């Protein structure tokens, strides 16, 4: 085997601490090395030409490049090698920049280390085998999980590009949190007025299949070829027959047994219900847990009044399987709950704010419902406990957010803005009322955001107090808010009629479970991880799965929409070709040696290991061995290390290559 070694100076980035000519010179004498050279910029056009010419001139079989990280230029050099006629997987890169010259000062020791790194690469390349890329077909259908604004936007963008979309929403209606908001910052336009047309568009789009009251229960397969199992929960209403007249709802005798979660528990709903009047689809759901029929077997009032015969108490959950090419995850967020938690939970709740026992201490979404014209108070400012108009209201920011002791270190990003908006709305509705905001910092970065906060302070005379509130006491129907104005250096006590807590945005409860179902990583809070924080913000690390909206980190509406469109665009790029090329780093089983213990099957994160029968000449199965589906295998190699008889090898990183690297140390 003839090997070429190319040492890059990277300008002075490598050569300042690594003696590149010396490295190249020493490599020349290595067994197997036919040609060794150093050059200022290997990745430049002349540099690549140098490689190509050397390959042809010296008839090289494999090359080693000593340069920057393989994550930077591996592809570049592989392409160069390929264009000169050698297999692109006969290229190894020794990372002389990020792992050597940049992190060490001493020229002697970093040069020696560089030599060792190149030597390891040479020994590895000697054992490399030519590999070819794997082609897999692409299913041209996209799954969008979550029907909030991000999911709606992504679904519409993909569908408008002409691809089929399956939109799965766990609630009975799409719309998400945005449909609960009264008005949006910084323009104060009505949230539902801008959202509803989008929801209708989704409903009517010929390319979008809308599955509400449904959940993704299983995801198998891989990029371009996912198999997704979706459970559609029983509504007990025949969707095809229901006309959405609402007769069942108005006649349902259960009126005050279940809290209305759309109204953030500020109102009740009947047992058969539509979450809100603009719901899409406009089809009710029967809540089995409170419905008299389901609890006692009697009643059936809805059945009697429905003239379409759409009520079906016997309806069961249905499960369907869809072939999917790409997945967009847009499952959104929920708000931090201040209630008392058991000690082992990561979020602690707020005892100092009463653990939710004070009825007029509410969270931001509850305030939105109170302020909303379609809400339980029809937009009138009334506090939950006694329906009186609060004359003094206190907003507390950073409840949960930036509070390590309660389990969250991050800033929820949108609370500064929505608190300003809510304080402003309050002042617009209660002209003689006083509004106070306790804040730590005001983070109003965004177009017209800072101006908006100033408007709340200057025009609407909201009083901003810098300091965190230590405790809320209830006294005489008032809420004593104990704080400190850290700017004035004075203690402050406010006897408020109502307190609004800007609680943190946290991931949905089932986010980690969903992440495991789909197979994407998540951070310690449960937010899904993007592939690269800067350059791949909408891709998850699993190929073919994209992220949109607040499931990745706290976001406001415009950001969620932008991210959704970006994810849609990435998906469209993926679907635009008929087949996909994949790196050939996959595991292969030696069937003769396989003992059939199937530990590989147990550890495989992707379900790539199948059982294969080995038959003798008479057709009798005499043993079962593991077989790895090349299309599904992602090449992690966990099976290779687990395999007791060492019958699995990972192409590109096989054991022989790694042993050679160790030996070269």
């Amino acid at each position, binding site marked *: 085997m003839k090997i070429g070694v190319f040492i890059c100076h990277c300008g002075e980035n490598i050569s300042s601490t690594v003696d590149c000519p010396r490295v190249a010179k*020493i490599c020349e*004498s*290595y*067994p197997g090395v036919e040609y060794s050279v150093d050059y200022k910029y290997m990745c430049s056009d002349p540099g690549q030409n140098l490689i190509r010419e050397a390959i042809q001139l010296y008839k090289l079989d494999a090359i080693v490049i000593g340069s920057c*990280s*393989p*994550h930077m230029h591996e592809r570049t050099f592989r392409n160069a090698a390929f264009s000169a006629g050698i297999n692109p997987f006969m290229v190894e890169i020794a*990372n002389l*920049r*990020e*792992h*050597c010259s*940049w*992190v*060490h*000062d*001493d020229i002697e020791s*970093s040069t*020696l*280390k560089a*030599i*060792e*790194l190149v*030597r*390891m690469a040479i*020994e590895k390349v000697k054992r490399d085998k030519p590999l070819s890329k794997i082609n897999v077909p692409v299913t041209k259908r996209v799954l969008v999980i979550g029907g909030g604004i991000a999911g709606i936007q992504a679904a519409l963008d993909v569908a408008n590009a002409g691809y089929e979309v399956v939109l799965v929403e766990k609630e009975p209606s799409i719309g998400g949190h945005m449909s609960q908001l009264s008005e949006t910052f910084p323009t104060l336009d009505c949230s539902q007025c801008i959202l509803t047309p989008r929801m209708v568009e989704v409903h009517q789009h010929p390319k979008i299949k809308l599955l509400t009251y449904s959940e993704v229960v299983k995801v198998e397969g891989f990029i371009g070829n996912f198999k997704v199992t979706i459970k559609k929960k029983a509504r007990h209403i025949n969707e095809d027959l229901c006309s959405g007249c609402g007769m069942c709802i108005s006649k349902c005798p259960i009126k005050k047994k279940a809290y209305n979660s759309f109204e953030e528990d500020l109102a009740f709903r009947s047992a058969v219900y539509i979450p809100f009047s603009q719901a899409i689809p406009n089809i009710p759901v029967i809540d089995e847990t409170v419905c008299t029929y389901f609890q006692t077997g009697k009643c059936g009032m809805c059945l009697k009044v429905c003239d379409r015969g759409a009520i079906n108490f016997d309806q069961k959950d249905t499960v369907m399987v869809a072939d999917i090419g790409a997945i967009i995850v847009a499952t959104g967020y929920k708000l931090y709950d201040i209630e008392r938690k058991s000690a082992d939970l990561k979020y602690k709740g707020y005892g100092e704010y009463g653990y939710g026992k004070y009825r007029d201490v509410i969270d931001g979404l509850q305030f939105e419902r109170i302020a909303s014209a379609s809400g339980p108070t029809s937009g009138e400012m009334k506090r939950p406990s006694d329906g009186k108009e609060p004359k003094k209201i206190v907003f507390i920011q950073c409840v949960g957010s930036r509070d390590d002791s309660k389990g969250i270190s991050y800033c929820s990003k949108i609370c500064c803005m929505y608190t300003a908006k809510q304080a402003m709305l309050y002042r617009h509705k209660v002209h003689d009322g006083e509004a106070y905001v306790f804040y730590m910092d005001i983070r109003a970065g965004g177009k017209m955001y800072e101006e908006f906060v100033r408007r709340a302070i200057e025009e609407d005379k909201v009083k901003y107090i810098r300091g965190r509130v230590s405790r809320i006491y209830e006294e005489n129907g008032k809420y004593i808010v104990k704080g400190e104005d850290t700017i004035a250096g004075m203690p402050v006590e406010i006897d408020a009629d109502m307190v609004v807590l800007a609680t943190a945005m946290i991931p949905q409860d089932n986010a*980690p479970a969903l*992440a*495991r179902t789909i*197979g*994407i*990583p*998540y*951070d*310690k809070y449960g937010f899904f991880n993007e592939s*690269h*924080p800067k350059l791949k913000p909408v891709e998850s*690390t*699993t190929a073919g799965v994209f992220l949109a909206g607040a499931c990745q980190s706290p976001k406001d509406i415009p950001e969620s929409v932008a991210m959704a469109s970006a994810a849609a665009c990435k998906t469209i790029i993926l679907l635009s070709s008929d087949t996909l090329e994949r790196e050939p780093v996959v595991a292969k089983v030696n069937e003769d040696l396989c003992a059939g213990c199937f530990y590989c099957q147990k*550890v495989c*994160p*992707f379900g790539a290991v199948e059982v294969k029968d080995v038959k003798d000449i008479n057709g009798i199965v005499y043993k079962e061995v593991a077989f790895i589906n090349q299309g599904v295998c*992602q*090449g*992690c*190699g*966990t099976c*290779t*290390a*687990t395999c007791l008889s060492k019958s699995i090898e*990972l192409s590109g*990183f096989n054991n022989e290559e*790694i*042993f*050679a*690297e*160790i*030996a*070269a*140390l």
Partner: protein
Amino acid sequence: MDNQKWEPKIVAFVCNWCTYTGADLAGTSRMKYPANTKMIRVMCSGSVDPVFILKAFERGADGILVSGCHPNDCHYNAGNFHARRRWDFFHELLDFIGIEKGRLQFSWISASEGKKFADVVSKVTKDIKAMGPFTNYQKMNSEFTALFPEEANADSEIINQIKETVL
């Protein structure tokens, strides 16, 4: 061996997605750490076989670091969880057999933790330096080479030859 001049030889098995990238970040941020550690890139911490560790000791390593993605952040979802169990056992086995725990260390370093990478490598180097050369194993190595020169050099004959020319 001259203890004054002795520099430990440390091997790090790092996963391609998190720790290797984290090491790249340490480089991009020009963080400094000792040059004793050489990295071997694998796809996932789950693919590191304990025999690799023994092989490295047999090749004269004084210390070993295995590093992967944080739990729940594995590029392959669960590779590091399997690795965690495997290493828990192997580490305890080595300890029982009489190999100090510090010889084989583990860490989770994400792609964004360049600083942590530099700190961990520095710490491992410091620990190994404090422990001194791994004479227990190296004694066996030299005995072996003396007894079975062919087998010892079967796959590293050439390399040893070159090592001499270099150093």
